């Protein structure tokens, strides 16, 4: 019987959520929390209407607007009629189906993967889904959280279950102490560079080891957030005192006796000693340098001091072509360092790096200094709550005095749906998670990096090594 054998964190959560398992069919897996946003949901709600279905569990569903909203003055009407229509459609859908909406005027609006944890919706042991591939973020709490498509959004709305096949498990063990100037973002960029953008396909990653245990919750979210960039179904970290301390007192976590009860359950979640993983890799955190990407997928990453690789150094024709194509798009020369490469824009934000600790890290570098003239620097907090906290700490003044734009919360230039975008040919250093062609605007060229590296690059007007400023 399964209960006898040592289990991983993932297996424990999976087993607890199996509703029905029939031969030759995928498992019907129960979903504890469904996060909804404006972009991937309209066709799902329409599907419910067309088929005359009701929403099964409004109280396990929560919505916000983040992808297509402007990050400028919210009292003004939305200029883009399609974005305005999409946001209006979400409001209509939430009203019709009884879903709580942390909408455009709400003090709790924000990027879906920022507000879930900060309001305490995200809890250990849960299954969490969202029509968004960065749902893995919530795995930082020891939840099984993954992104789904719009058809599956409709499945969850209608049945609160999803048909799933069990993924395999993959331990990513990271020990050692991070050097100054190196952060969670560098860990995950280094991992993806190591295993590749397809390296996690079919797996749920569990991050373990002393370097992970030493991370704050926000840093853990940064790591889990980008699991999908290695192709993984999800990424998770076992809950511990850091997790419980973060959650205590959040608005939607269990209170009083129910909290004690929850704690007891959560403490059972970590992988048992001797639990087996299907695959594993190890990394030494003390060897890591600040990382940056040079190409057009997040696996094309390097230590910031390293030269751009030559396509010929790649192991096979397909990757040689991929790197050649990427360098052409990025207009970079093999063998030359990225360090010192001029940039036009810096973007500090996104569900990877827009939380208060990210903003504090950037502000720490920018304080009392000026960003390079002609550079456009956008600082976009992940939520209204992050924004208010930053205001209390005086961060907006630091950013503005340095010459940055301090904006309203949303996805912004991570996905460039809302008008915050690069111009063709422009280079950015960005704290977001994707450097795909055109991701930050048609023809835009993205170097992904940490908030520290982004802030340092903002000061120097080119790709910079933050360690020279510490």
């Amino acid at each position: 019987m399964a209960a006898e054998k040592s289990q991983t964190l993932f297996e424990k959560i999976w087993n607890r959520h199996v509703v029905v398992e029939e031969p030759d069919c995928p498992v019907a897996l129960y979903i504890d929390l469904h996060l909804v946003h404006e972009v991937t949901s309209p066709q799902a709600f329409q599907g419910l209407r067309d088929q005359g279905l009701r929403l099964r569990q409004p109280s396990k569903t929560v919505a916000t607007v983040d992808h297509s909203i402007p990050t400028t003055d919210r009292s003004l009407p939305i200029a883009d009629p399609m974005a305005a229509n999409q946001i209006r459609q979400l409001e209509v859908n939430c009203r019709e189906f009884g879903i709580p909406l942390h909408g455009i005027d709400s003090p709790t609006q924000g990027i879906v993967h920022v507000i879930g944890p900060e309001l305490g919706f995200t809890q250990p042991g849960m299954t969490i889904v969202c029509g968004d591939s960065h749902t893995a973020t919530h795995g930082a709490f020891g939840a099984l959280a993954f992104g789904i498509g719009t058809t599956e959004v409709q499945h969850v709305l209608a049945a609160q279950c999803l048909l799933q096949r069990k993924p395999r498990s993959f331990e990513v063990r990271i020990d050692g102490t991070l050097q100054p100037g190196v952060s969670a973002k560098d860990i995950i960029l280094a991992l993806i560079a190591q295993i590749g953008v397809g390296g996690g396909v079919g797996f749920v990653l569990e991050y373990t080891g002393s370097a992970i245990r030493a991370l704050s919750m926000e840093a853990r979210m940064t790591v889990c957030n980008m699991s999908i960039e290695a192709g993984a179904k999800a990424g998770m970290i076992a809950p511990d005192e850091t997790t419980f301390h973060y959650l205590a007192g959040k608005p939607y976590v269990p209170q009083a006796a129910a909290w004690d009860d929850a704690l007891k359950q959560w403490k059972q979640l970590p992988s048992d000693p001797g639990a087996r993983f299907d695959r594993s890799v190890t990394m030494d955190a003390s060897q890591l340098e600040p990382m940056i990407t040079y190409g057009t997928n997040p696996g094309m990453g390097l230590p910031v001091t390293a030269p751009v690789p030559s396509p010929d150094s790649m192991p096979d024709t397909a990757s040689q072509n991929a790197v050649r194509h990427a360098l052409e798009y990025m207009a970079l020369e093999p063998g030359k360092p990225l360090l010192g490469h001029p940039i036009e824009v810096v973007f500090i934000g996104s569900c990877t790096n827009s939380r208060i600790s990210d903003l504090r890290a950037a502000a720490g570098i920018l304080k009392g200094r000026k960003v390079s003239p002609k550079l456009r620097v956008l600082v976009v907090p992940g939520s209204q709550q992050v924004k208010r906290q930053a205001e209390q700490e005086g961060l907006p003044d630091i950013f503005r005095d340095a010459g940055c734009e301090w904006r309203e919360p949303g996805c912004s230039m991570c996905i460039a749906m809302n008008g915050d975008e690069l111009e063709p040919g422009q280079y950015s250093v960005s704290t977001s998670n994707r450097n795909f062609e055109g991701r930050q605007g048609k023809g835009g060229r993205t170097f992904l990096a940490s908030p520290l590296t982004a802030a340092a690059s903002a000061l120097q007007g080119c790709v910079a090594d933050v360690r020279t400023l510490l």
Partner: protein
Amino acid sequence: MEPITKITSRLVPLPNENVDTDIIVPARFLKVTDKAGMDQYLFRDWRFDEAGKPLPDFILNQPRAKGAQILLAGRNFGSGSSREHAPWALLAFGFRALLSTSFADIFQGNALKNGLLPVVIPPDVHADLFRQVEKNPNLEVTVELASQTVTLPDGKTVSFPIDNFSKQCLLAGVDQLGYLLKQESHIRAYEQSHPPRVQTTIGS
């Protein structure tokens, strides 16, 4: 959803590996609230110039792509975001099957749920097809779902994996939601024995 049985078609080769969903449908076209007109967004920035004029070099703009139903794609096709707009756009253009050595997870699931068949073939067959199609743009293959085989131009067949559940849904052209809704009594029993973890509606 249209059932899939047998697809015989010319191949449209797109050798790039790790083609991501931002390439398949750029994010700026995600502001739609329905599924209409998706084909015009497919591979938008590789297919059209600034002014919206078709770029003649791109494979989808060449006569051989017209009416073709099978895309021969580079490895790890469909990486990146969960946007279902990607399979919607591929279907709207006319594709019914994709051949590659691997597909990204979410994309593969989305494709299967929409009647677009992702077919995983061995790396040597994959490489060989690219070589052959370069010489002969009219190269045809046949994908047959019931037998889970691809019949190659030389008459040889290779088999491909697909889980039986998805296969039956595709053969019948039925949505997987129907199966899920039939599990109502199990879902209710589960809910009764598992108190909710969270109440999102409190205070709203």
